[in-house]
């Protein structure tokens, strides 16, 4: 049974702001606002002028317990420490592909505080010794591309980017790269392939990107949110960060709520926040007093949870994993009672069949196959064996491929077919 921290009782989400401090400010994206109102570039100053070595930065981030916010929750500091030390070309890439259905937190960061990202990237690049970094943005995000590019331009003008930053001898250049809008390019090796100008499909591991990534050089790929929070951690210290969240999942995280909710949107919450309280109180509950049927807690690739399973859940990596799903990117999709899970399944399978890169056979053929069966069932042409077939296909797609897209398609399918089996009955003949 998850323990709900007492200190969250009676406090509004607004009180846990780390990243979105500038939310609602009239000129939030401007570098001046960021510097004046958001302690902007203080952390960078502390790192470059305060004599912090790259190891110190890595250790600070390690000590904060920051976990990657892209979905997998891998400790960020640990990821940086895998990069070989010493001179040589290294790259830092920000994964701004944000393709997971239901997720829009990175867009929100770039809308509210793009300079957090830029500053975080400079610090992270200093930590791993990268001379060049990229922000890989999904092609459809026209505004976000502009905002990030403007922020970089301003940072160059202010002397936070370029040769010999703040006289520290550290040189760093940053660029925005627009992708073409493929879900698979959000996978780090797929993203690297795309950035290299190749067809965006994941690469075999080993070798891992930290050893051989972009152009064959050591590369770190971090999520926007993980990087944007780094300046705060450096500025306020890891202990301050650890005050938020749970022991194993410290800090705050952005959550995106979608579905028939009174107040959908992007919220910054400390990890370990109670899910149902968040939905019912902070987001205002379901529209029209509808009953909750299921929640997909971490983007479309997280297995759906029934309303009953959600009751005592808190929003942190361990609690949701314990319930058999994952926190993922923090995109909470709320499904009300009047939506058929069969159509949810068909919709998800359509997405994955369309987005599979087609490289590994189980995923290429399996996602298409699952989509065909789910379409069949939705049309009322399915039989009972179709459910068993879906389950065994999904089982045999899992863990068999280069990247986890096939797991991402198989897990929701398995969850829906098993947990909501009774909903399929009206669709099946015989």
């Amino acid at each position, binding site marked *: 049974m998850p323990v709900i921290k007492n200190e969250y009782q009676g406090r509004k989400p607004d009180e846990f702001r780390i990243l979105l401090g500038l939310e609602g400010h009239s000129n939030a994206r401007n570098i001046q606002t960021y510097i004046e109102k958001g302690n902007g570039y203080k952390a960078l100053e502390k790192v470059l002028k305060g004599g912090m070595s790259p190891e110190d930065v890595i250790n600070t981030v390690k000590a904060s317990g920051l976990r990657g916010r892209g979905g997998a929750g891998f400790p960020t500091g640990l990821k940086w420490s895998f990069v070989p030390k010493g001179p040589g070309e290294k790259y830092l890439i920000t994964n701004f592909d944000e393709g997971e259905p239901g997720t829009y937190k990175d867009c929100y960061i770039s809308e509210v505080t793009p300079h957090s990202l830029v500053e975080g990237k400079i610090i992270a690049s200093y930590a791993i010794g990268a001379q060049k970094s990229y922000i890989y943005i999904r092609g459809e995000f026209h505004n976000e591309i502009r905002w990030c590019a403007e922020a970089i331009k301003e940072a160059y003008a202010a002397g936070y980017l370029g040769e010999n930053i703040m006289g520290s001898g550290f040189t760093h250049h940053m660029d925005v790269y627009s992708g073409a809008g493929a879900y698979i390019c959000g996978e780090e090796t797929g993203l690297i392939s795309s950035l290299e100008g190749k067809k965006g499909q994941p690469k075999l591991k080993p070798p891992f990107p930290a050893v051989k990534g972009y152009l064959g050089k050591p590369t770190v790929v971090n999520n926007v949110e993980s990087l944007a929070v780094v300046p705060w951690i450096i500025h306020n210290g890891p202990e301050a960060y650890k005050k938020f969240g749970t022991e194993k999942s410290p800090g705050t995280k952005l959550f995106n709520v979608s579905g028939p909710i009174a107040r959908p949107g992007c919220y910054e919450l400390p990890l370990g926040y109670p899910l149902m309280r968040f939905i019912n109180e902070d987001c205002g509950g379901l529209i029209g007093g509808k009953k909750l049927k299921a929640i997909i807690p971490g983007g479309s690739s997280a297995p759906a949870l029934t309303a009953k399973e959600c009751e005592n859940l808190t929003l942190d990596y361990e609690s949701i994993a314990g319930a058999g799903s994952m926190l993922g990117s923090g995109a909470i999709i709320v499904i009300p009672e009047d939506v058929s899970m069969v159509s949810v399944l068909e919709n998800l399978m359509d997405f994955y*069949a369309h987005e*599979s890169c*087609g490289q590994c*056979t189980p995923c290429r*053929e399996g*996602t*298409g196959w699952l989509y065909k069966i789910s379409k069949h069932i939705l049309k009322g042409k399915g039989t009972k064996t179709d459910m068993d077939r879906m389950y065994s296909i999904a089982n*045999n797609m899992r863990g*068999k491929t*280069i990247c986890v897209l096939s797991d991402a398609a198989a897990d929701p399918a398995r969850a829906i077919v098993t947990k909501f089996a009774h909903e399929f009955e009206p669709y099946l003949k015989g």
Partner: protein
Amino acid sequence: MSETVTLTIDGKEVTVPKGTSIIEATEILGVEIPRFCWHPGLSVAGVCRFCMVKIEGMPKLQIACNTTCTEGMKVITVSDEVKDAHKWALEFHLINHPLDCPICDQAGECELQNYYMKVGRYSSQMDEDKVLKPKALDVGDNLVLDTERCILCSRCVRFEDEVTKTSSLGIFNRGDHSIVGTFPNRKIQHNYSYNIVDICPVGAFTAKDFRFKCRVWFLNETKTICPGCSTGCNITLYEHKNQRQYYRLKPRKNMEVNGHWMCDEGRTMYEHLNATNRLAVPTIAGKHLSWNLLGKEFKQKLENVKGNADKVALVLTPQYTNEEYENILTSLKTILGNLPKIYVWRDSAEKIDDFDGILMRGDRNSNSKGLSQILEKHAAQAVTLSGDFSPLASSSANLVLVFGPEIEKSYSQFANEVTRFAELSNVIYFGTTLNPITKKFSLAIPTKVFAEKNGTFINFKGIPQKLKANPLVFPAMKGIEDIFAEIKA
């Protein structure tokens, strides 16, 4: 740093060099792990996900092609879990495969068929419609592509990228609509295109040269050596079981000589073997002569010049086996009392030191090295005829023995040059191909082709390689050694 690691595969211990993948280690042991995308001559793609093995201590199954062997690793390739993974991998490959085996040229040597019989044997759960893709596309001078049959193993793409470096193939679209194809306005036009047919595990790429001609189960295999150039690629020759007809040849792995590949030029080396173009019976002054009478006539001609070895000219081409050269020289020495004047006829346009960077060499003769070694052994001085035939014409020989080339197209001026011999009197011509000029020689004797001989070719590196004989296309035919044995008796 130790250079080898020892691991256990299915309980059998094997020691391999560091950096070896599990699939390579199983090859050494002789354990076969099913695979589609892995090819020993290409980089690792790891996309077919077929070569799953269980490694003790790892929670999930791993692919054998991209997992490096480590000390003390325990690999299991036959457990129920692994077998199940193989079955499912095969099912995933087959769900969108058209199963048009009856009209597919690959049927009979298709890895999908083979693995279905070896590790599959399930009944398919696929009930849905298959994905339709373009069929029978013309993608180059020699190739036809059927994207529906393709299992997207990417071997062909990697071959184009890594071996020929022409990069004309790519995989387009996504998901189960992925299609292998050529880039816009590009075709596969290079000298190694048939290798793509060989490495294609299914019938996606078929050879225009072989397409629809014969089903592979009618073919017999013979392991022999390509006579196309001095590289001496190891090949397998395919002959019809019931008819005396050759259909194709394929490369055979030999890392010292040709690796896994061979050139398209070499692939045509079966064409001159078939009866249609062959010189079938000896002719004397343009008239057919039976094989029984040939020995008598030939002996007569040689006896006329007995003792006058310097009045006999012997013209050799570097396309015969070592054994034949040896036989010719020793026999003539015995009959004539001494070695005749020796000429070596070579192509006037050849550039011996040319090399295309992969396999094909400018010296289009299979046994140049062998010929020079045999001549050296007999301490014979040979005059090279290369475009200039005046040394032969001025020798005023009474009898000229010409051992013409087996592969006439390797002589760029063959049709012109062979008439130069016809201008001389009393010429005995040995050759394989039927052409009008043979009737002009006083005696024309058919010889066996490389596929019908047991013998040795020495390649440009000096590696002697053995030919293996097939049954004769013309059963009555006698080889050079038979004819000389007959007249010496």
